[in-house]
């Protein structure tokens, strides 16, 4: 590995959040953004082709060193670390509305989900997954919400474009799909393959 790749490795090891390539440029005044990207690629290959328990992943607009998924169970059993708790169905639905409609106000979220959203919005804000991104025009100038980088980090997405596109969704926009009641019953679990 080049000295720059080693430096990046050290920085990524020390950080407790994903670091963007632009941020990593600060490490070495000589290095250009292109140099950093090349070194990151080298680092990724180092972990992927050597036999390593950790890997370099790209998420939330940055890079992070994480353990490989196969080791999660053993690490958890020994209680050395713990995976993030699962999100409830109501939380995920609210996040889905916000992710796709942002900036979006509370009224629209409630209209789409058919339930009041105050409590869930507060929890999501406390957990740093959404934030107020502005105010709508019109009566009362209601708050508008959007997702945060932490949301991307939690889902392991590089950016919002990693979310499934509307045309990739299996059923919702195709109400006149071939009639097949068995198929309709299972349609909800037929989600697109991993990105």
């Amino acid at each position, binding site marked *: 590995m080049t000295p720059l790749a080693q430096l990046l490795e050290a920085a990524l090891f020390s950080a407790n959040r994903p670091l963007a390539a632009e941020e990593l440029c600060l490490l070495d005044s000589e290095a250009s953004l292109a140099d950093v990207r090349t070194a990151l690629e080298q680092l990724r290959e180092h972990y992927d082709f050597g036999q390593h328990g950790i890997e370099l992943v790209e998420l939330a607009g940055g890079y992070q060193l994480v353990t490989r998924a196969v080791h999660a169970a053993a690490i958890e059993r020994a209680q050395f670390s713990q995976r993030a708790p699962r999100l409830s169905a109501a939380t995920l639905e609210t996040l889905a509305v916000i992710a796709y409609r942002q900036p979006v106000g509370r009224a629209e979220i409630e*209209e789409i*989900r058919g339930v009041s959203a105050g409590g869930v919005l507060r929890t999501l804000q406390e957990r740093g997954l959404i934030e107020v991104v502005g105010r709508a025009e019109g009566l009362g100038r209601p708050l508008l919400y959007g997702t945060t980088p932490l949301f991307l980090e939690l889902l392991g997405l590089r950016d919002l474009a990693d979310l*499934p596109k509307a045309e990739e969704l299996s059923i919702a926009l195709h109400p006149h799909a071939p009639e097949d009641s068995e198929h309709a019953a299972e349609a909800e679990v037929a989600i697109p393959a991993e990105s």
Partner: protein
Amino acid sequence: MTGSITIPLTDMAEDGSAFVVELDQFTGPLDLLLHLLREERIEIADIPIARIADQFLAAIHQLGLNQAADYLDMASRLVRLKAQLLLPRHSDEEGWEDPRAELVRRLLEYQQIKEIALWMGRAAERRALNLARGYLPPPPELPPLPLTLDMLQLLSAVERVIAGIPSPVLHKVVARPLDVESAVRRIESILSVQEGCTWVEALGPAPTIVDVLSTLLALLEMARRGALTVTQPAPFAPLWIARDPSRTAA
């Protein structure tokens, strides 16, 4: 919450086996509605409103009030739709819009959101398997404990709170009535022997705050009656209190 509520919807299973709905498992009225449609294997675009409305009402029948608001809103929409569809119409009527269209649109939209939520849940689970350095799990969300207590416990709690209050600090209000009449008499007696006087003279010896206020009110009152004039030659200059010149003859 009242826990899970099970409602047998016997009329919809042809073989007689009871079909059971647990409301806790639904995230809202649209979720429940989708479930009912799925159970009946009905295309969303072709909802038999009358039947679904009845099933929906049966399902929410025993809901606690807190949860019920969102469900009642949907129930009222369904009942209205049911009524609208009962009205006779000519099949060849032009411009007739299916009153179910709005509901169908919302259901499709919600179904899409559910699908995305499912996808996102799986993405989060996959991601959670990659442990990062320095990751601190957020503190678990503890639900508030249900408050159960009887009247005696409540009263003893109130007593403990009252006992904990130090000694009650009360502000005592002392009535110090202003004596405007005697101030008027003092000023009149001064003005009976001299043309005018200063504010300090009018106050009398060793004035208290009450004397100052009484004198001020007396002066204003007498000036209003025309018994004297109060002049101030310059800003912040001493006041000069003079007998009303028109009454000097009296």
